[in-house]
Every structure is written in structure tokens, then in C-alpha cells.
């Protein structure tokens, strides 16, 4: 039982961290219709830069999060620049940035080791860094209470991010980002360049990716240079699942949907580790789960109407009336 509760709490922790990632992807994927694979490279970038400024400059962990946001925004801007100005397809821009970032983050780890060599895992305790989630006051707590405190802090961070993003989406600039993904011709008609709004949207989305990476490192109490792998899939699943699970609920904001999506997904992942204890099949579970979410998402409308029959025979595309 206590194992179950710990697994649940662990899932909540991760879920809240991924929620920030998911809010970012909600902007780039849902609003701008841009599948930003750069996330896999920018997530660890946020982590390594945050760790470096805490280690080398002794910056406060909260400030480190802001630094990670700025670095993330710049990388998102690079993705956007490649897409808009160099006219490379969105998917490829993400892959280019992600690939490049793998070396950049590795090179940056040289700043974390005193020998000047690159490394993969850097423990905060060994480096003597105090993140948001460690320090004397939190070490004195019991394991269970420690997790609850971490969840509490993460919850506040997610709430702040959510409220800020919601407010932004209500502004004129936010409206333009929504319109850009929806109908570029309309943005042109309004006398604005849709390209600049794409870049702006990607910068905001990847600023959040950087924040999530930095928080993740602080939460894990270590920087792992491989922490980015598979993050874009996690965030996409969270977004798509959140929107298809809760999309029917009126008055629920998109940001809330994807936060819940992220939490449900990481809980599922964590429960799976109870069965698959050495993690062999974790990625396969990821892939199958993603496929299922997409299939159910596609069938959702029919499912509400005709139940399980929706999965039996393919429904013909209804002919649109002119």
C-alpha cells in the first residue's frame, strides 16, 4: 500500500513537472500547429544552464529558472527563424535544433566539472548546489512529507505558469498567435506578418520547455545530460490526451486540460513501473499508450454517440456541403 501511495506521489511530481512542458506544447502544437521536436534538446539545455548558473554564479534556484526560460526562448526563436526565414519544414527545424543541442548541452557540462571534461550525470549534492527542493529544512522531513512539499511547490509553479499563459492568451498578441495557427491569411489581412507571430509563439513555448528542464533537474537533484530523450513524446501525449479526455467539458481552459493530461499520463507511466520493475518495456509502453491516445482521440466523437461500436467499422467521411 505504501508503495502504491509513493508511486502515486511520484507520478504527481513528474506530472506537474511535465505539465509545464505540456503547456508549452499546447501553444506550439495546438495553437500554431507546429510539432516542435526541438523540445528534446531544449529540455536538457534548460537543465544544464540552470545548473551552471547555480553552481558557478551561486544564483538563487528561482532565478535559475528564469535564466533557463530565456535560454529556452532563444532556442525556440532559432527553431522559428529556421522555419520562417529559411523556409525549412517545421518538423525538420525541430530535428535540426534538437540534434545540435545534444552537443551544446554536452559541451556545457564542461563548466560543471572541475577537470574541464564533459560528463553525463552531475549530482547537486556532489556539486554543493541547493535547488528549490533540497536543503536542510526539507531534508529534515520524512520521505512522505518531503514528496508532499515538493508537490506543493511544483503545484504553485504550475499554477503561476498557467495563469500567466491564460492571461497572455487573452491579450491582443495572444489572440494573434491563436489566429496565426488557425488562418494565416487572416493575420496577413490584419496587416501583420504571420511569421513573426510563429517565432513569438515558439519562443514562449520553448521558454516553458527550458523552465521544465530546469525544474526537472532541481527535482531530481541532479543534471542528467540524457534527460531530454523522449520528452517531446511525453508532452505530446499529455496535450493530446488532455484535450481529448477533457475537451468536452465547457468552461475548462485548454491549459487546465493539458495539465490534467500530463498528470494522468505520468501516473499511468509510474503505475506501469510497478509491473515492469527494471524499465525494459517503458518506452514500448510509451509508444503503445501514445498510439492508443491518438486512436481514441480520433474516435472520441463517435464513441460518445455509439459507444464501443465506434471501434468496429470505419465510418465514412461525411461529404461537406459547399
Amino acid at each position, binding site marked *: 500500500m505504501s508503495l502504491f501511495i509513493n508511486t502515486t506521489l511520484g507520478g504527481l511530481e513528474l506530472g506537474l513537472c511535465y505539465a509545464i512542458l505540456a503547456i508549452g506544447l499546447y501553444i506550439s502544437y495546438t495553437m500554431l500547429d507546429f510539432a516542435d521536436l526541438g523540445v528534446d534538446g531544449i529540455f536538457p539545455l534548460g537543465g544544464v544552464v540552470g545548473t551552471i548558473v547555480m553552481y558557478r554564479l551561486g544564483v538563487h534556484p528561482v532565478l535559475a529558472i528564469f535564466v533557463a526560460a530565456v535560454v529556452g526562448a532563444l532556442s525556440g526563436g532559432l527553431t522559428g527563424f529556421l522555419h520562417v526565414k529559411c523556409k525549412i519544414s517545421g518538423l525538420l527545424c525541430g530535428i535540426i535544433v534538437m540534434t545540435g543541442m545534444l552537443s551544446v548541452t554536452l559541451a556545457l557540462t564542461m563548466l560543471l566539472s572541475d577537470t574541464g571534461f564533459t560528463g553525463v550525470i552531475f549530482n547537486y549534492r556532489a556539486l554543493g548546489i541547493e535547488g528549490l527542493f533540497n536543503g536542510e529544512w526539507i531534508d529534515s522531513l520524512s520521505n512522505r512529507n518531503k514528496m508532499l512539499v515538493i508537490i506543493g511547490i511544483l503545484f504553485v509553479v504550475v499554477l503561476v505558469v498557467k495563469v500567466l499563459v491564460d492571461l497572455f492568451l487573452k491579450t491582443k498578441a495572444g*489572440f494573434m498567435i*491563436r489566429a496565426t495557427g*488557425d488562418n494565416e491569411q487572416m493575420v496577413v489581412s*490584419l*496587416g501583420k*506578418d504571420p511569421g513573426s507571430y510563429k517565432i513569438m509563439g515558439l519562443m514562449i513555448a520553448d521558454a516553458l520547455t527550458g523552465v521544465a528542464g530546469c525544474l526537472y533537474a532541481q527535482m531530481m537533484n541532479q543534471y542528467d545530460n540524457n534527460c531530454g530523450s523522449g520528452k517531446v513524446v511525453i508532452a505530446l501525449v499529455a496535450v493530446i490526451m488532455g484535450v481529448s479526455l477533457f475537451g468536452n467539458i465547457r468552461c475548462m481552459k485548454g491549459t487546465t486540460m493539458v495539465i490534467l493530461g500530463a498528470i494522468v499520463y505520468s501516473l499511468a507511466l509510474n503505475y506501469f513501473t510497478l509491473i515492469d520493475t527494471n524499465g525494459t518495456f517503458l518506452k514500448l509502453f510509451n509508444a503503445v499508450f501514445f498510439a492508443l491516445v491518438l486512436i481514441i482521440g480520433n474516435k472520441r466523437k463517435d464513441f460518445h454517440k455509439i459507444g464501443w461500436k465506434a471501434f468496429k467499422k470505419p465510418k465514412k467521411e461525411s461529404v461537406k456541403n459547399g
Partner: protein
Amino acid sequence: MVELERIGKVFNKGTVDETDLFVDFSLTVRDGEFVSVVGSNGSGKTTMLNLIAGNVSPDRGRILLNGKDVTAQKEFVRARKIGRVFQDPSKGSSPHMTVAENMALAENKGKPFNLTYALNKKRVEYYREMLRPMGLGIENKMGVKVGSLSGGQRQVLTLLMATMTPIDVLLLDEHTAALDPKTSEQIMQLTGDIVREKRLTTIMVTHNLRYAVEYGDRLLMMDKGKAVIDKSGEEKARLKVEDLLKTFNEISVECGN
């Protein structure tokens, strides 16, 4: 005022499909003039609108808006002073945003899109009152996503949005062609009212010869990049659909269709 000066435009240059659409084409539309443009497919009507709007640039010649040379300006820069309604009702609005949100965007055209709130209750009421006289029931759908409106409702919304801010010229690109006859009639009347009320310089491309005769104070019939009929004032008022049809048929016979 809109001026096209000695425009030359070749499509598919250097290929077997090379077409000289415009060779030395000039047109001046005076302030407040409402021009209807008819012509067969490929006659250059829509290209003419595209040249003015800026999503097609000419090989030769100049385009002037209110006396200012805009030939080199990008489409989105030019759009600040141009209102445009397309044939496809989905082109003018954002389907996942609500009616009120779309109108708020349109109203802000030409001003900076900054970090201030885009919408408040007072504005929503103002937009509602704007929509009420249209009689299409959109005023009760302020919070509904535009994507779920009918084609006619969307087109009315687009027309209102295109004319909300001061513009130099309104371009209508077969804007009633995708609608059923009744809605089409309704929107055409509405267009006439708005253009008259706001004294807009308007260029309307249409395949409906009756609309071309009934509306506007100048009529152009285009063929192969030239204006074969250009009547205004008294002459235009005396023009009948039959006359147009006759010329239209003559042109078509020449082309072999």
C-alpha cells in the same frame, strides 16, 4: 484612389505554359468608385485583385494606392489599408476563435497587437449591436466559434470585419459565389449598403452578370488581360444583362469554348 500603371505580368515564364496575362494594362479607380468586374476564367480578374493586394507582384509597371507607390510593399504591409473578402468564407476569419474574438482582432487592425486585453464586455455588446441589423442571428452567437457558423454568416462577419477600420480600397473576390442564391442576394445587398454608407472605393469581381449590372457605378469586362467593356455613369446605368451576355458569348466563341 487605386492606380495600376502599365502593368505587365507573365506567368510560368520560360516554360511551355508561358502566358502573357497582362501586357501594358492600366486602370484608375477614383475615390469612392464602386467597380464591378466580370469576365471568363483566366481573363485576369482575380490576378488584378491579387496585384493590388500584393500576393502577386507585377513584372513591369507600378501600383499606386492613394497616390503612394506600393509596388514593392509586402502583402501584409499593404493589407493595413486594404479590406478583402474572398470567395471562400473560411479565409477571412479564424475558425477556432469566437465571433467576438474575431471582431476584436479586426477592430484592432492598424494598431499594435500588444499585451493589453483584446476584449471586454463593453466591446462584446458593441459588436453585438453591429451584427443585429444583419438579421442573420449572429448577434446571439458572440461566444460561438466561427468555424461552426454557416457559410453565409461567416461571409457577413468577414465583410463587417474587412470594413471595420478605415481602408483605402475594398476588394471583393467573388464573395457571394460559394453561397446559396438567397444568402447570396442578402450579402450583395448588405455589400451595397456598406459601400454606400462608408463611401468605400470598391473593386468587386463577380461571375453574376446581374449583380455587376445592378451594383456599382462602373463596370469592367475583362478578357485576356484587357478591359473589353469599361462603362460608368449614365452608360453603365443603361447597361443590361443581355448586352453583357452578348459580348461575353462573342469573347467565349473567339476562345473556342
